[in-house]
């Protein structure tokens, strides 16, 4: 049994992983604060950028500047240190901070002053902009829902990348390739069965199902570990996990 992923009520345990990044940004240690911000940045910058583009109707350039400035300011002013887990999820808090930040920026008309000569953080905005162009319209979604959806997309994309690198490091490229073929690349209308996949790769069906089970288990573990890392408390982690996976029918 792997307790790392044991968030069911049977074991009821927290995944044993690194300390919460949300708590790390409040650490006395500069290195720990930096690590915390790096984790939060990876998890949130894309959702934040897309949120600014879609919800605040910011132009491409403005959204880039605002995203850069928001996270730079968060680092500088310890925005995230005042997060209180009792008052709601970190994701909701971050979005509220972002809304407030945009309102202040607009009001003070400081964008020209803020605009730096060189980027403060290395973020791939072109990639994010290309994703926006491919995304389904977010019409009818509440701001909270739209932000959450982008957060989930980013979380899963990060988890897929980590699964790919973990598998490569452990010499398990084939399970990842099967996962990619069966879970990521499959056309929704394609009737891909385990038998057909086994034929495609020339392996027995049982081995294909075992490899897929391994990859799914690892994917789930990575998702939950990442979620654990970007939440501040057991309760928040459980709430987020339930919203992310427990309501997967939605």
């Amino acid at each position, binding site marked *: *049994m*792997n*307790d790392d*992923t*044991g*968030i*069911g*009520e*049977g*074991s*009821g*345990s927290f995944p044993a992983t690194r300390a919460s990044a949300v708590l790390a940004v409040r650490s006395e240690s500069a290195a720990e604060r930096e690590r915390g911000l790096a984790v939060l940045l990876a998890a949130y910058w894309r959702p934040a950028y897309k949120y600014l583009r879609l919800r605040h109707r910011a132009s491409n350039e403005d959204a880039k500047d605002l995203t850069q400035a928001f996270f730079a300011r968060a680092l500088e002013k310890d925005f995230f240190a005042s997060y209180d887990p009792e008052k709601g999820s970190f994701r909701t808090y971050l979005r509220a901070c972002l809304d407030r930040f945009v309102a202040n920026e607009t009001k003070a008309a400081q964008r020209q002053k803020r605009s730096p000569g060189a980027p403060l953080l290395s973020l*791939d905005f072109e*990639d994010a902009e*290309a*994703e926006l162009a*491919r*995304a*389904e319209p977010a019409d009818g979604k509440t701001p909270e829902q739209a932000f959450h*959806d982008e957060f*989930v*997309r980013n979380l*899963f*994309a*990060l988890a*897929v*990348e980590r699964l790919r690198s973990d598998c490569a490091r452990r010499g398990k490229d084939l399970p990842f390739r099967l996962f990619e073929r069966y*879970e*990521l690349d499959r056309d*929704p209308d394609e009737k891909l069965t385990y038998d057909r996949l086994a034929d495609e790769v020339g392996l027995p069906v049982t081995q294909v*199902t075992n490899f897929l*089970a*391994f990859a*799914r*288990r690892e*994917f*789930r573990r990575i*998702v939950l570990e990442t979620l654990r890392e970007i939440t501040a408390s057991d309760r928040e*982690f*459980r*709430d*987020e*996990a*339930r919203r*992310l*996976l*427990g*309501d*997967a*029918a939605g």
Partner: protein
Amino acid sequence: MRWLSDVTVRHLRRVAEWPDLGETKYRLLDELGRGGMGAVYLAEDTVLGRPVALKVVATGAAGGGTAERLWNEARVLARLEHPGIVPVHDAGALPDGRIFYAMKRVDGRRLDELAPDLPRLERLRAFQRLCEPVAFAHARGVVHRDLKPENVMVGPFGEVLVMDWGVAKALGGADASGPPGRAAADSPAVRTSEGAVVGTPAYMAPEQASGSGAVGAAADVYALGGILHFLVTGKAPFDDAGAAARARDGGRAEPPAPRDVAPDVPPALEAIVLRAMALDPGDRYPSVEALAAEVGRFCGGERVLAHDEGLPARVRRFAARYQTPILIVAAYLVMRAVLLLYGRR
């Protein structure tokens, strides 16, 4: 970084939620459905080589005693061996910590989906079969507390199965010969459910909706009345707004009369529904058997006890019940009359 479409994200949410069966004897095949407690998956028991349905509690489902409800359901099912109740094969915790139980895979359709395709008499026959496992459970001291068409499956041969026993309750003095290790009376859901409002508002008895705690077999009689209401009118006794209003007033609202919803419902059938759904438990049928027998009387063209019919109605029912003999006698009389007329010529 790889871009994921909305379709892929939705799919990955399911994939990440799929149970880890790595250290069990089960092999995951497919997802069958989802509910409040978690999801049901189709799996293969690799030891016995048979398909099973695995019910697994949802990830992060710490609130509301979901795991306790799943345990409760497994234990209740294990002690109720009846053809109308799905047998449980196994229960435990998965490697990822989530609680599960394995049960027989049920093929069939939910009653709410199937009912519109059936003629009224077949719907009523299905209702009678539905009453059998519920009556059996009551005899074993177990009340379902969440009976509704969505929790009833009808198999390909017309067999009716009652599902979702997660909020079932063992009544005081019930048979305590439950599964080994824990007496039925100690089951957590039995304890925690006392006084808690559980069930589905549209089919919930007033005493259940009010959370007074005095919930017994009569609450299931009420819910069965609600199902009968649905089967004869095509509509749940309370819509969403009505159910919400009931939740506010402690379930004291009267259900609409079936003939107000569907005027072609016979008055006797309406009377059965209304008696089963009486606000006061003492005014309902005293048992599920009594309710089933009453529906049986209606189906057989007999007089139902809940309905005080007038002479014209009695004649019509008599005529309908003895239609064939009456027609034979009438034909005979007509023939005799014709012969007499011709004989006189």
